[in-house]
Every structure is written in structure tokens, then in C-alpha cells.
């Protein structure tokens, strides 16, 4: 059961008719319970999902992104008043998770241009360039991914999530590997998009969840040892 959500802060407002509703959402891998049943409703602003390692934060985000079919419960995602089924969520969600990897033999720019083009954005090259600038990677955009450090790769992930300014952002440990400057850029970006975007952060880092107006605490009890 989800517990302990902070009250909605005054500045939050519904963004572009966006909402996520979960009822009894849970997931098992084989017989192992990876996510305890969750019920919540989010509409706009910034929400943080916190909990010990292994409590299912990443699993929850994957389910919300439409990448994973939950073994129990339902989730309903509405954007612009239209419900988005699991197969369509990728068109309205920007996802950044630690498992997101890019093509090593291509540059950051090429990866993002590919992503933008495949998603059907109007001017893919421009969108890619803009995303890279926003995240402070313009200088290294043309280097192959294999040459980038972990901090820079994280920035590429964030740039990927920001492509096309999606109405929903799902960010799993967005600040990992980032230096102070990267973190500042991240916070600026989130603050910038928050009024028009529903942002869900999965994190254990206080610097990140204190940005949120709402907190969903995963307890992670009975799920094995918190690492």
C-alpha cells in the first residue's frame, strides 16, 4: 500500500489535461514480488517515487512508460483528455532510466536525431541539437558514445527524455553520475518544464525528491533485502 504522500503544493496545476491513475498496480517477476500494490493519482507538477533499493521504483516507471505489462492492477494515462494505452505511451512520455543505452558506434547527436526521426518529430536534426544544448552537451555532440564519460551519458539520457517536449517525464535517478554543474542544469530544466509537464522522479537522493510537491513512498517490505 502506498503511504506518506506530502500534500499537493500550492503552485501545482494540471498540465495539458495530463493525469496518471494507478489502481492496485503490482508486478511479479516469476514468483518474486517486485512491486507492491500501488494506488495513486497524479496530475501535473512534480512527483517523487522513493523507497529502498529493490522496492520497485524502476519497475513502476517501466510500467508507466508502457514497457512492462503489470501482473496485477491497472494504470490509466490521460493526455489532452485522451486515454493512452500501453502501446501509445511512448509517444507522450520522455523516459530516462539507467538501463537506457545508446548506440555506441554513433554519436550523441546521431542517436538523438535517430530518436527524433523515429518518433515522427518535424525537424529531427534541430530537435536533437536543441535537446543537446539544453542539457549542456553541445560541445561533445559529435563524439561517438563510446568516448563519453558516465556523467555525459547521463546527460544524453536526459536529452533523450526531453526530445519533443513530452507532456509526461519519467526520470529514474536523473542526477546519477552528474557533476554539480550537471545537477544545476537538471534542476533548471525540471523547474522550467514543471508548469506544463507531469514529472515523475524515481530517486533516493534528497536533492531530487525535495524538488517534488508530492511523494509516493514505496515501502519495499517483504521484497528481499534492501541493498
Amino acid at each position: 500500500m502506498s503511504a506518506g504522500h506530502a500534500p499537493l503544493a500550492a503552485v501545482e496545476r494540471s498540465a495539458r489535461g495530463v493525469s496518471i491513475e494507478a489502481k492496485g498496480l503490482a508486478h511479479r517477476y516469476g514468483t518474486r514480488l517486485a512491486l507492491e500494490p500501488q494506488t495513486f493519482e497524479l496530475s501535473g507538477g512534480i512527483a517523487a517515487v522513493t523507497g529502498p533499493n529493490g522496492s520497485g521504483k524502476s519497475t513502476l516507471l517501466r510500467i508507466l512508460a508502457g514497457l512492462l505489462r503489470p501482473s496485477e492492477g491497472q494504470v490509466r494515462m490521460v493526455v489532452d483528455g485522451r486515454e493512452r494505452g500501453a502501446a501509445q505511451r511512448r509517444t507522450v512520455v520522455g523516459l530516462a532510466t539507467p538501463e537506457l543505452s545508446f548506440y555506441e558506434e554513433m554519436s550523441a547527436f546521431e542517436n538523438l536525431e535517430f530518436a527524433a526521426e523515429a518518433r515522427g518529430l518535424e525537424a529531427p536534426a534541430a530537435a536533437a541539437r536543441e535537446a543537446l544544448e539544453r542539457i549542456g552537451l553541445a560541445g561533445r555532440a559529435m563524439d561517438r558514445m563510446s568516448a563519453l564519460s558516465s556523467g555525459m551519458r547521463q546527460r544524453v539520457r536526459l536529452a533523450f527524455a526531453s526530445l519533443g517536449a513530452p507532456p509526461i517525464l519519467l526520470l529514474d535517478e536523473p542526477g546519477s553520475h552528474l557533476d554539480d554543474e550537471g545537477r544545476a542544469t537538471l534542476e533548471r530544466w525540471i523547474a522550467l518544464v514543471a508548469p506544463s509537464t507531469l514529472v515523475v522522479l524515481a530517486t533516493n537522493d534528497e536533492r531530487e525528491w525535495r524538488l517534488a510537491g508530492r511523494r509516493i513512498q514505496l515501502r519495499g517490505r517483504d521484497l528481499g533485502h534492501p541493498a
Partner: protein
Amino acid sequence: MILRATLFLWVAATMVAAFVWAPEVPVLGPTTRVLYFHIPSAWITVLALGWSMVHSALYLRTRDLAHDDHAAASAELGLLFCIAATITGSLWARAMWGSYWNWDPRETSIFFLMLIYGAYLALRGSLDDPVRRARLAAIYSCVAFVAVPFLMFVVPRIYFSLHPDPIINARGKVDMDPRIRWMFLSMLLAFTALFFWMLSLRVRLGRFERKREARAVAHAN
């Protein structure tokens, strides 16, 4: 209990009658007897495959693992009967035409079915997670379904046939001694009952295995 005993007696009686009561078909001579084992085995092979494929499709539609139990169990049994059909067919070919294997259309078809079963079971064997295994195996089953009519009917038309069609045409008119016809149908029914009985056992076993695993992990936590 009674049903099982009945089944046992039925199969036993049919087998004895096959050797003692039914006459021989002119062309085939003593090898007629193989009819009663070879063709029902082949029929079950096809039935089992169909059963497995239907349940695979049902699994994809409903995500109920019970369908996967049926698909897997049916495939295992199907492979068994397929091997039986291939071996009996091969022995018969040796007795009739002097060589164990000729790649004539029927032999080719049964061999293809064996390949499909083998591939399906090999795929299952390489996947550990039950949900992923069920899903991927079901997908393969559905594609294989497309290949089956081509392998069974179209490929034979491409190659020359050695199979004695006029007499052993179970689908068309059977011009033989009524005793043979009775024997044949009797065995066919016996085999079918046998298959479904074995299937029910195997499905139950599969279900117990899944539940036992679930309980074991729940206790561990």
C-alpha cells in the same frame, strides 16, 4: 479409476484383435498390422500439434498460464507420438519397399512435424522465466502454424509420391474388409483417448510444478 481400467482394456483388446482377428490387406500382407499403430500415431501427432497451437493463440489472447500448460504438455506428447509414427512408418517402409527412408511426401511431412516439435521444445528449454517462456513459445507456435499447411500439403505436391494411397486413404473411401475398418477406427479412438488422458496428467503436473514454485518462494520470503 474405472475409466482408466476401461481405457487399458480397450487398448489391450484392440492390440490383440489387430493380430488375431482382423484379416490382412492383399497388397500389404502381414504388414497390415502396422496400419493400426502407424496411422493413429500420425493422427495424434497432428491433433497434438493443433491442440498446442490453439492453446498458444489462446494464451496470447488471455495471458492465462493454464493455456501455456496445455500448449507445452501437448507438444511433449505430440513429439512422443511423432517419434512413434516415424519409427513405425520407417519399419513399414523397410518391410514394404526395402529401404528405411525415402523422403517420400508422407515421410517428409512427418519429419517436418518432428522438426517443428523439436524447435518448439528447444525454444522453451532455453527460457527460464515462465511468463516470457510462455509468450515467446506461443509466438513461435503461431508462426509455425503458418508453415504447417505448406509442409504437409504443398511440399508433397512438389515431390513424387511413394505412399500407397488407394488403400490407406483414411480420409476418402475405405475399400477394405469391414473388419479392418472396425479395427482401424477402434484403434484410432483408443489412441485419441490415450492421448487426452496422458495430456490431462501432464497438464496437472505442470500446474502443480508452477504452484509449488510459487509456494516455495512465498515461504522463503
